[in-house]
């Protein structure tokens, strides 16, 4: 009789700068399935992990923001392709955390389609929201959108794949780079999504994914002086909301609050989610010989 095979479990690490490091703190916490069984030990990301990730995101910003809109669109589409290719992996991950088969399928489908939705916006939002301004003097004047910079985000707690993708896609579609804290309770799909990113053509450092505790990291996300914007979509506890808002004022961080109940609702996908992470730049030039 053949011996029962011991399966090999994946070690879930974080995703920073295109690498999968453990937390510098060496800490982990237990990611459980819906019955309370251990799925994996997730990294408990620290202040220093966040610091490293921001530094890398800043370093990646110049290159990513100067990619052509067409290229960013292709890369987002490539993410969708890779996601499609790894459906089984996500089916296996979503099942144990409470998704019925049909729900998991719907979640993955929606996540793939959302990538494609934003892939299509990369070279269009500028046309819809930029403008040529008919000033009264002899100047040519136009306004265009430019990415805000480095965005720190709390991914939605209850939608570990679709919610995560729905937050990351508009941020990077517009040329920003980001550091995202995965769903605290269900961190594993985020790390698998990092593998998707890593096998698509997203340059390292454009998306960085940490796992860990909001309670611990909210302070650091919101106080970091090299973070230009912070985004959350859950209804955070009032105290945490206040803390984030207050800390944001240290460097006039943009706070993007997007309360979303249902990530399947197509209303939550919008070019305005892209423009929330954009700055309008207006250029003047004389018109003459």
């Amino acid at each position, binding site marked *: 009789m053949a011996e029962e095979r011991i399966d090999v479990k994946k070690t879930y690490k974080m995703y920073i700068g295109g690498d999968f490091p453990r937390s510098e703190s060496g800490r982990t916490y237990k990611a459980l399935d819906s019955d309370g069984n251990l799925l994996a030990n997730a990294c408990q990301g620290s202040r220093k992990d966040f610091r490293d990730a921001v530094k890398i995101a800043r370093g990646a910003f110049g290159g990513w923001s100067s990619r052509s809109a067409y290229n960013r669109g292709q890369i987002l589409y490539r993410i969708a392709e890779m996601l499609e290719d790894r459906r089984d992996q996500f089916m296996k991950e979503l099942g144990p955390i409470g998704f019925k088969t049909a729900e998991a399928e719907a979640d993955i489908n929606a996540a793939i389609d959302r990538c494609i939705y934003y892939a299509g916006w990369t070279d269009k939002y500028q046309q*819809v929201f930029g*403008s040529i*301004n*008919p*000033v*009264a*003097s002899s*100047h040519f*004047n136009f*306004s265009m959108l*430019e990415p*805000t910079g480095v965005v720190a985000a709390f991914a939605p707690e209850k939608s570990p794949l679709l919610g995560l993708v729905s937050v990351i896609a508009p941020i990077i579609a517009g040329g920003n780079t980001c550091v995202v804290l995965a769903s605290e309770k269900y961190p594993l799909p985020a790390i698998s999504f990092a593998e998707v990113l890593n096998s698509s053509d997203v340059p390292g450092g454009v998306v960085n994914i940490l796992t860990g505790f909001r309670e611990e990291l909210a302070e650091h996300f919101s106080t970091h002086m090299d973070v*230009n914007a912070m985004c959350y979509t859950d209804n955070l506890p*009032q105290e945490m*909301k*206040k*803390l*984030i*808002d*207050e800390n*944001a*004022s*240290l*460097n*006039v961080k*943009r706070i993007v609050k997007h309360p979303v109940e249902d990530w399947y609702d197509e209303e939550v996908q*919008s*070019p*305005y989610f892209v423009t929330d992470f954009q*700055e*309008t*730049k*207006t*250029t*003047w*030039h*004389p018109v003459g010989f």
Partner: protein
Amino acid sequence: MSNTETKEAAYKPTSPNSKLDFASVWEYAPAPQDSKFAEVKDQYDLFIGGKFVKPSKGRYFKSTNPATEEVITEFAEATQKDVDKAVKSARKAFEGEWSRISAKERGKYLFRIARMLQERAREFAVLESMDGGKPIRESRDVDIPLVAAYFFYYAGWADKLEYAFPGKKPEPYGVCGQIIPWNFPLLMLAWKIAPALAAGNTVVLKPAETTSLTALKFAELVKDCGLPDGVINIVTGAGQTGSEIVNHKDIDKVAFTGSTNVGKIIQKSLAGTDKKYTLELGGKGAMLIFEDAPIDQAVEGIINAIYFNQGHVCCAGSRLLVQEGVADKVIQKLKDRLETLIVGDPLDKNTDVGAINSKEQFETVNKYLEIGVNEGAEVYQANCDVPENGYFIRPTLFTNVSQSNRVVQEEIFGPVLTVQTFRTADEGIEKANNTPYGLANGVWTDKGSKIFKVGSQMRSGVIWANTYNKFDPTSPFGGYKESGVGREGGMHGLAAYIKN
């Protein structure tokens, strides 16, 4: 002069590089703007619910003319009770008449305001210069025409909002609390009130305590225009009054223009609330002058960038970065140009640089002049006369400064320019961006492709290429980084007053 003398003079050799002499055989006589027709009352009350009302605590504060240090009038100090009254009247108007009238009619009120401002333009210009110290040439030719233009521009948007927000049904926030600075008093009022009303909001606005006069004159004009009571409320006072507005629980949206420090305090005090806010804050704009730039026009652009409105401009080009090959030439021309700037009476039509807005700001700028000298900068000031009384500062250049100097890093908000050099475009851009601010930057070069590259790499909300300090109601304005959140002006400026 005889024939022979003429010839001798023409061939008289002069030494190369000798200085031009602008102390002229022909000087301009004083050309005072008539100001008697502009009426100023001894005292101004608060404008709430369409009426002028006394402040609840009965306190007034004096306002001085910074060019003479004489008191010109006094304004009511709005306290918590007054602000509450103003917010309530704005709420009542928002829920009542203002929401009931059609967007088209709403727009017509704004058109009416624009027209009436044009009719009384000179009066407003005179008052603006008396109260704030800015030269009449600027209040007459820049501030007030733009005030009318902003109202005119946004008036037309009132019934066309859905075209500005594709896919959205635009709705106003409700009651907006607006706090404006002292550098462009009436213009900042227009930037705030015109889009807010076009979008269907009502407002409680607080002008700066040193420059409230034109806001209250504007309130009189609003009455003349027959705007429904409570749509526009104007409360005067200092920081405490502003804080009462920001923290009032029935304010839906706060719009602030002022220093980054105060902006941060406001952002912080709104923490944990659902109030929306836009902030238009400070700056430390850089101007990159490349070797191939149109040098004479660049020099004029620099003058407009830093000495316009005594340098009290958030987007002022206060850092000059010159490519090494033309640095000497540019500095020489700049020094020549400084000699022809006329500093003095704001109401003289020939004045280029008026009075520093207040004693407090006068002391701040002087403090920075001292800091610059202590940091080892070489200081050059225009060799002009300044009046004995009043708060006047000679246009100033600091050379021999570096990126680490405080005068290079901090917003001085006065007629003080620092001059640095750079060798390559990359170095210039890096220096320009090496600041927490990001409001405006300038670039001067004859090469189109360079403009686009440099312009796209400088992180600021406005890029003035081969020009500087231009404003237009159709043109969005606002900062990156610590220079603010949101835009004012243009279609993008409407977003500040529409629910998202």
